[in-house]
């Protein structure tokens, strides 16, 4: 049975959730891709993209699909397949819930700025993404990053946010291009 991310977050690592989602859903996605003439590599690519979208939507909107996580992951995978191979002139109707899972493309972050920040402030980016993107609480952040407690982790989180903000400012004031 597919684990419900929101309910199991405290008990399972993200890695465990990914394994369960692969075991529960990837065989059906692979069958679909094969049926459509795709390869195993195609199926892997599609499923990776689907998982990224799916996790992001769960984190941002606490989305709990009525018909189960596996069903919607399959829906996203199919949609991505048709999008990727649009030239085959095939289309699939999206249910309302599946269409809400599909996220708009992110604004293009300059890969140069991200690379620079990953070199100069990786620990800060790791900490901030653990909080905002993985949605760990401060106790979990403190444990993962070795802080003495939640207060210390919270203080560090804001220091990191200011550090990244200032790096963005410096780039902007130096007229670095942020967008590719």
């Amino acid at each position, binding site marked *: 049975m597919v684990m419900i991310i929101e309910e199991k977050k405290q008990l399972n690592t993200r890695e465990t959730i990914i*394994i369960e989602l*692969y075991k529960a859903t990837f065989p059906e996605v692979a069958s679909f891709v094969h049926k459509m003439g795709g390869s195993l590599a195609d199926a892997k690519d599609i499923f990776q993209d689907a998982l990224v979208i799916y996790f992001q939507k769960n984190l941002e909107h606490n989305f709990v699909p009525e018909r189960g996580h596996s069903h919607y992951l399959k829906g996203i995978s199919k949609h991505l397949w048709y999008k990727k191979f649009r030239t085959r002139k095939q289309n699939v109707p999206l249910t309302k819930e599946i269409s809400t899972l599909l996220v708009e493309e992110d604004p293009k972050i300059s890969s140069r700025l991200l690379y620079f*920040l990953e070199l100069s402030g990786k620990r800060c980016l790791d900490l901030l*993404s653990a909080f905002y993107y993985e949605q760990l609480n401060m106790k979990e952040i403190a444990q993962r990053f070795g802080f003495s407690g939640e207060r210390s982790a919270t203080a560090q989180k*804001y220091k990191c*946010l200011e550090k990244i903000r200032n790096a963005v400012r410096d780039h902007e004031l130096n007229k670095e291009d942020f967008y590719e």
Partner: protein
Amino acid sequence: MNETQLIEKYLFKRLNVEDQLFMEAKLLTDPEFKCKLKWQSRAHEIVKAHGQKILRQEIISVENRLFSELRFQNFRATIFKIFK
């Protein structure tokens, strides 16, 4: 609540009515603060891009394990049967 915290709550729509009004007034009267808001919003986009990158790496790592470790051999057999 310092400026960074205030901006964070504003961006995530977690300000109470009183602080929301204060924030809006400050944005109208303090150009430097308005710039901070813009930069902090961009900082969140960068954190998100980094988070997505980490997630994708984790997914690829898990996938590699599923297609190599002994304990997942039944899973692999199912998949290889599809593409045989």
